[in-house]
């Protein structure tokens, strides 16, 4: 049976381009484009829209990073620039997602380090970047201004905007030409509302990527899956305020008990499995960017996405 479509959709997911090369004022060696779907994921031969991408997540303060990953990485985790270069070259993700975890420590005040870290990572890799700043409204203004400034013209995807605190992130995107991750806590109505708020502040829809928040498998993933599907349905039915591509991160997958307490001899295998089995279904639910932290999860995830993408018609269930 060949599935071509499930319905006569009237809407289409918008496209978003991340990263900028020299001609457009950036320094990236490539740009990537996501979105554009006119149907559910992986339906049609070839499927509509752009193929889902993999972002590799790293941070500038590994003490706030899951232990199975830092164990695997060893010393590399102490320098975000080297970490980004190495991961980019060895594991070839499509994007690097840098979490400025240093800003999340109590009493953070070294704002100059934000600029330095972002600049160093820009130097170390040519991949388009996603940058995650502080999550404290007292710090946001300064942190996001510096992120925006340090990457002016690079077309970063910056996160994470939430209903209560989105102004600094939107301002950074508008002032320095970046894109915004708009996150809502597994709630389609709040996702829509935030997108409207961002539009009203002056950020166009083609510069927003929705993060519906992704729980770990068995710890709420099914809710995330369902809300991603509903957001995609809304987009395909013509709701422009929800017609943005989505990003999903296995952010909770490496902190669940089963991974945390796994025997060190199988820790890597377990970590990869937990990330893989959350992120592959997320692409089916509609995510355009999926994120992992264990570098060994990148290749199997890519194989899974490629398999779904280019499965020949009629063999989908084989």
């Amino acid at each position, binding site marked *: 049976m060949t599935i071509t479509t499930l319905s006569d*959709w009237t809407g289409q997911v918008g496209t978003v381009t991340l990263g900028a090369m020299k001609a457009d004022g950036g320094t990236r060696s490539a740009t990537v484009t996501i979105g554009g779907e006119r149907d559910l994921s992986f339906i049609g031969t070839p499927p509509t829209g752009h193929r889902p991408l993999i972002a590799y997540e790293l941070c500038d303060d590994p003490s706030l990073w899951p232990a199975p990953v830092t164990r695997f990485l060893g010393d590399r985790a102490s320098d975000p620039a080297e970490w980004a270069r190495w991961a980019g070259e060895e594991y070839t993700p499509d994007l690097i997602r840098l979490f400025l975890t240093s800003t999340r420590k109590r009493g953070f005040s070294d704002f100059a380090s934000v600029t330095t870290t972002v600049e160093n990572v820009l130097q170390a890799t040519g991949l388009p970047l996603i940058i995650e700043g502080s999550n404290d409204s007292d710090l946001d*203004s300064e942190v996001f*201004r510096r992120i925006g*400034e340090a990457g002016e013209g690079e077309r970063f995807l910056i996160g994470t905007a939430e209903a209560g605190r989105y*102004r600094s992130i939107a301002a950074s995107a508008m*002032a320095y030409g970046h894109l915004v991750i708009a996150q809502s806590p597994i709630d389609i*109505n*709040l996702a829509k*509302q935030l997108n409207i708020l961002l539009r009203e502040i002056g950020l166009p829809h083609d510069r927003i990527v929705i993060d519906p928040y992704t729980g770990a498998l068995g710890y709420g993933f099914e809710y995330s899956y369902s809300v991603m599907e509903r957001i995609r349905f809304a987009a395909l039915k013509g709701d422009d305020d929800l017609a943005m591509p989505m990003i999903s991160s296995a952010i909770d997958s490496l902190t669940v008990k089963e991974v945390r307490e796994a025997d060190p001899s199988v820790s890597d295998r377990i970590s990869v499995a937990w990330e893989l089995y959350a992120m592959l279904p997320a692409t089916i639910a509609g995510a355009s960017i999926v994120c992992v932290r264990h570098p060994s999860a990148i290749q199997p995830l890519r194989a899974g996405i490629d398999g779904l993408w280019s499965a020949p018609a009629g063999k989908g269930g084989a």
Partner: protein
Amino acid sequence: MRMDGLSGTFSYEETAYHLPVTFALTGKAVHTADEARAAYHATGENPLVACECLTAAAETTGGKAPPPYTGFLPDAVLRTLGYSLVDGSILGLVVVAGTPQSPDAAAALCRELQEKYMLTFLSGGIVDSLTGAGVKVGAELRLVPLGGRPFSAIHFIDIIARVAMMFGGVTPGDADRLLAYARERAKAIAIVFPGLDEEETAVFDAFRLLGIPILSAGEYEGSEWIRVSAPEAVRTGMDLKGIKVSVTAIPIPMACSPAFEGKSIRKEEMFVEFGGGRSPAFELLRCRPAEEVEDGRVRVIGPEIEELKEGSAVPLGIIVEVAGKTMKKEYEPVLERRIHNFVNYGEGTWHVAQRDIIWVRISKEAVSHGVRIEHLGKLIAAKFRMDFPDLLDAVQVTLITVEAAVLEAKKEAEKVYEERDERIRGMKDTDVDTYYSCTLCQTFAPNHVCIITPERPALCGAITWLDGRIAYEISPSGANQPVAKGRVIDAERGEFEGVNRFVKKASHGEVDRCSLYSVMEYPMTCCGCFECIAVMLPEVNGFMVVNREYKGDTPSGMSFSTLAGTIGGGAQTPGFAGISKTYILSDRFLQAEGGINRLVWMPSALKEELQGRLVPKLEGRGLSGLFDKIADEKIAVTIEDLTAFLAQVHHPALAMKPLL
């Protein structure tokens, strides 16, 4: 004339916007004296262009202004500034120019500006006055000294021009967009002390074109500048541009978010309820003069929550009084309808319907957390200020819980409702080519779409076509959107291509067709807020209408609440329609089915309510006598009794084309 003496080439450094004001107005990159003169003439000898060209020439030949003056600010600084404006860490921009007579007064003024998160630019003698009075200046202190002469204030305008191009999407050369952006979006004011000469005065006067109010704390005669004393300058200026420190948290012991909007409070969960036919209740929003409204004031007249019996029904009057410079009386009904959303935002409060048929509940859980009736008022007042910061300056709420007082205030409210309904009367659907949608209820009924026309108000009765238009004006991305009628598919049923297209999209693909004037074929969907329900009665070849307030049985065999449960939730149910009371009076009522001749039954209270308007209307249409042929519950509550009555009075419906 000084423009004639201009020579050589000139430019500002570190900007991609050339001479920004000139560039924004003309789209031309000016770098030579001849180009400058051409631009000056092309703009009708705009003094801002002249001032900018002369200033740029002077800064090019004479070098940048000496410290502490900044002169022209590079683009990088502008980006940071724009960031702070979007981010909300700066609320607005002020330029202060001239030489104050009292340095202390000027110092106090600048301190006030700093405290109110305004970014202040200083131009002329004011800088010396401030440093003389011991005030430190500098960009980091939000006091930016542009230059020692008032002409340097042109840099304030080049900042606004660049912000418009960087953040406002204004294309260089699109002078209209620039002016519109400056007027509507730029939160900028100018405060002028004495000491400006004639030329300088002309330049400042040109600021008004950009919607920048000029507050004069000096002796400038005969101009359209606003005279103020120094201490009142900041407040007056901020008021004029609607700049206000925003409300961020609502001080009530209950969470408040759209997330709770769709949550019902069931009878078992309820501590107390108001209205819903169990007790008299109404809501009313009025626009008042500013001096009569004290922002945030909430009064409860009558018993508070601790004096009420658990599980009881209590009378309630919600009176919201608002003031705002741009607030208009026409906006009242649209804003009033928002009370519905706001009360539902409360985690433990619930609201349905509108006007004098509201139904409100407060949950036991909320009361156990300390929620009182006054918090309803606090919630409403704060949400109005948060959601309409540009429209409303002050909101006060009065809640009445004493029956006698509620009844008396309700009489007044009913007069206001009547005046509002009067305004729309006389307009025809054929007079306009745009209708308005309402999807306010989609939180409860996700696929429901109301289409509001001049002759068919929203089914809740609270939003007319005019209200829809105004709501769209107030918030262009809100729940009321313009709907282009498009080609007529069926004039009798009122089916239009444009309406169908809109309904399909807004109903998320669930509803393909919608007839505005038919109950039988593709009727409009129903949310749950309808004032009345029209029901087809096949036995008598006609329709009955029952209103929300009527609690008894009807000839359809179902009460209002049973019917409401059957047809609500966003479904399209042929044979049934949610309608407003005034729609019964409309020429479009039941048009596809043969008009009001089909109406066979209404509750007596509804008949009485409409009688004054309906009887003349029927006479006008040559249907005198029909009113008395419409039965009510005193005549018949069963279909058998109704059939007998209609036959006896020779009701016209009996002889009409069969409905089925």
